[in-house]
């Protein structure tokens, strides 16, 4: 039978054990700096368990080696590499079980290799495996108990097992955390790359500049690019290209190719020869299997001439002023595949037409499993052709991103046209009565610039203001919202055909409810619609393409 003093001492010892386990568990769970934590822990464990030395070995190199990550005691072992099946520690890891060797000289697993290297004498070893679930991480080893007999006891085995479990978890967590940090770092770098990439694209120009582009990347970084810049003689050099593959490789090749184009294009104004130079340069040190398709050219706004060269890119489409399309065929291999290739040039005159250069992300976009295709893209262009070029590009990309349409690739479009730009206006104002004056003032400027006389301008402005008042009162019902006003000339009908559209995002209104009231029933709204009908040639309410809100289109022929 045990004496009460023995029981009290056992209880006190157990308390101390628990306190150490708790302290270390806490240190492990709160620190992500694993080296620091392990260094600290191994010293505490060694002292607490009265060992002469202690070390932690972790599996590395596809679990073929055990490497000492930290140690305490007279001999510095940190960095020491052992074969994964080496000695008692290797055995501990392999069997995933605690090994307690009281006298190493009698243990067949003991190898004296380390002792021989260090001059240290190992007498007895306590070694516990570090595992999380089924994953083996390494082992923790205590050497030579500082007691009279120098032997580890059963209690030591239990404490080390408990400590090893929490140490293993801490090592595992730290590894996961650093993987997460690495992932975040890569994400951050991709974002930087995207920013750098979008800075390589030219700054968007106003409607009266002949070249406009837009790029919609499907990932952080894109393999598509376009560029344009004006030469001192007024001609404009432009290109659009698609790098094979996706992701970082593609975007680096994109950066290189676009820089070459931008730099060499300032002095080499023959698109065919420029492409030959870029082709050789890209070919010289390109990664196997990567290539670039490109349409590049030079446009002279003075006479409307375009000289084009095409390196393996799909043919650009020219829409004539009359509305029909022609593909500009002219194929050479993509850049970077074969050196010393000639790139023949095609010359065309833009006249009042528009040239569309695009990547296959446009035509390969799908709706209900069906690809848009060239014809679908042409229909999309035609649907928006009476809009000024920047508004047209915006509308086309809205259509491409509409719900239900799937984009699988980067989408890039470059548009070249040489039309004298008629005055136009795109304005968005809050749907509040105190913004009506601003709307009228802006609209008046454009209507007068479009050639209207003062009296007619008054009428047009009244109709616009009445339409906007109706949106505020009857569509938004005095709730928050925006009104978009667009005014432009529909030159396909006549240079005097003014088109005014007002769009809101309120609930869609039943068109049958919009009618003018009898004249003796003069309440706002009804009288307003009467004004609009009297003043405008034509008035059409439609539900916008995206199914939200209302659109009113008013047309009037301008007379001076």
């Amino acid at each position, binding site marked *: 039978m045990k004496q009460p003093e023995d029981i009290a001492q056992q209880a006190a010892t157990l308390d101390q054990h628990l306190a150490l386990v708790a302290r270390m568990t806490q240190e492990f769970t709160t620190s992500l700096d694993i080296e620091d934590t392990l260094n600290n822990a191994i010293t505490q464990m060694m002292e607490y368990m009265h060992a002469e030395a202690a070390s932690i070995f972790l599996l590395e190199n596809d679990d073929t080696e055990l490497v000492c990550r930290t140690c305490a005691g007279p001999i510095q072992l940190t960095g020491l590499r052992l074969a994964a099946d080496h000695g008692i520690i290797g055995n501990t890891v392999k069997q995933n079980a605690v090994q307690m060797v009281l006298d190493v000289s009698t243990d067949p697993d003991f190898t004296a290799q380390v002792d021989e290297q260090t001059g240290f004498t190992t007498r007895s070893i306590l070694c516990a495996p570090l595992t999380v679930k089924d994953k083996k991480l390494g082992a923790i080893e205590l050497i030579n108990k500082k007691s009279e007999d120098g032997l580890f006891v059963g209690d030591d085995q239990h404490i080390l097992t408990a400590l090893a479990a929490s140490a293993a978890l801490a090592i595992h967590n730290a590894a996961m955390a650093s993987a997460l940090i690495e992932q975040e770092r890569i994400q951050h770098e991709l974002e930087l790359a995207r920013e750098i990439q979008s800075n390589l694209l030219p700054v968007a120009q106003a409607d009266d500049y002949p070249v406009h582009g837009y790029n919609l990347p499907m990932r952080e970084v894109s393999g598509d690019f376009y560029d344009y810049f004006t030469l001192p003689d007024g001609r404009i050099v432009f290109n659009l290209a698609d790098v094979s593959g996706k992701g970082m490789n593609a975007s680096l090749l994109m950066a290189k190719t676009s820089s070459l184009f931008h730099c060499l294009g300032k002095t080499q104004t023959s698109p065919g020869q420029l492409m030959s130079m870029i082709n050789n340069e890209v070919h010289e040190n390109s990664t196997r299997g990567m290539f670039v398709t490109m349409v590049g050219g030079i446009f002279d706004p003075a006479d409307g001439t375009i000289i084009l060269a095409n390196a393996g890119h799909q043919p650009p489409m020219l829409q004539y002023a009359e509305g029909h399309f022609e593909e500009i065929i002219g194929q050479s291999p993509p850049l970077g595949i074969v050196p010393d290739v000639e790139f023949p040039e095609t010359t065309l005159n833009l006249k009042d037409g528009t040239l569309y250069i695009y990547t296959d992300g446009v035509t390969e976009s799908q709706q209900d499993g069906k690809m848009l295709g060239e014809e679908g893209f042409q229909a999309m262009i035609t649907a928006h052709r009476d809009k000024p070029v920047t508004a047209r590009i915006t509308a086309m990309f809205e259509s491409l991103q509409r719900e239900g349409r799937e984009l699988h690739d980067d989408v890039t479009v470059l548009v070249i046209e040489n039309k004298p730009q008629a005055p136009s206006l795109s304005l968005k104002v809050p749907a509040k009565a105190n913004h009506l*004056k601003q709307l009228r003032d802006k609209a008046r400027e454009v209507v007068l610039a479009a050639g209207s006389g003062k009296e007619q301008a*008054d009428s047009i402005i009244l109709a616009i203001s009445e339409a906007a008042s109706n949106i505020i009162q009857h569509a938004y019902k005095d709730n928050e919202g925006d009104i978009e006003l667009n005014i432009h000339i529909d030159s396909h009908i006549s240079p005097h055909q003014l088109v005014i559209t007002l769009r809101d995002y309120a609930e869609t209104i039943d068109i049958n409810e919009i009618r003018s009231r009898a004249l003796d029933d003069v309440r*706002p709204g009804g009288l*307003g619609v009467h*004004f609009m009908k009297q003043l405008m040639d034509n008035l059409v309410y439609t539900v916008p393409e995206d199914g939200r809100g209302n659109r009113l289109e008013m047309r009037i022929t301008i007379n001076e």
Partner: protein
Amino acid sequence: MNNNSDSPVKFEIDDEQGYLVVRFEGEIDLYGTPHAREVILNCIKSKRNTVIDLSAVSYIDSSGVASLVEGYQLAKNDKLEFGLVNISDAVLSVLQLAHLDKVFTIHASLDERIQAS
């Protein structure tokens, strides 16, 4: 003067030859109308013959026209005079559009109105 500095419509009321003369200035649109309407209705409610001077109104929309009609109807019910004087071309063309140029009595000035009656 009793002008709300927020309102785009300014006004001045004078008591001349037995009439309240309200002289509006600015643009009477959906934003300015509530203010203008209140001024007109207050004149009628004070049981006074009222004329509205629209020489300095550069823009009026259907809501502004509607408050003129409201003043006209209210005055008629109370057997009070209500007329428009000195109206700008901008206002006249909107009244013509609403076919109201023959409904309102319109005069070049208050004097002309008094002589005509």
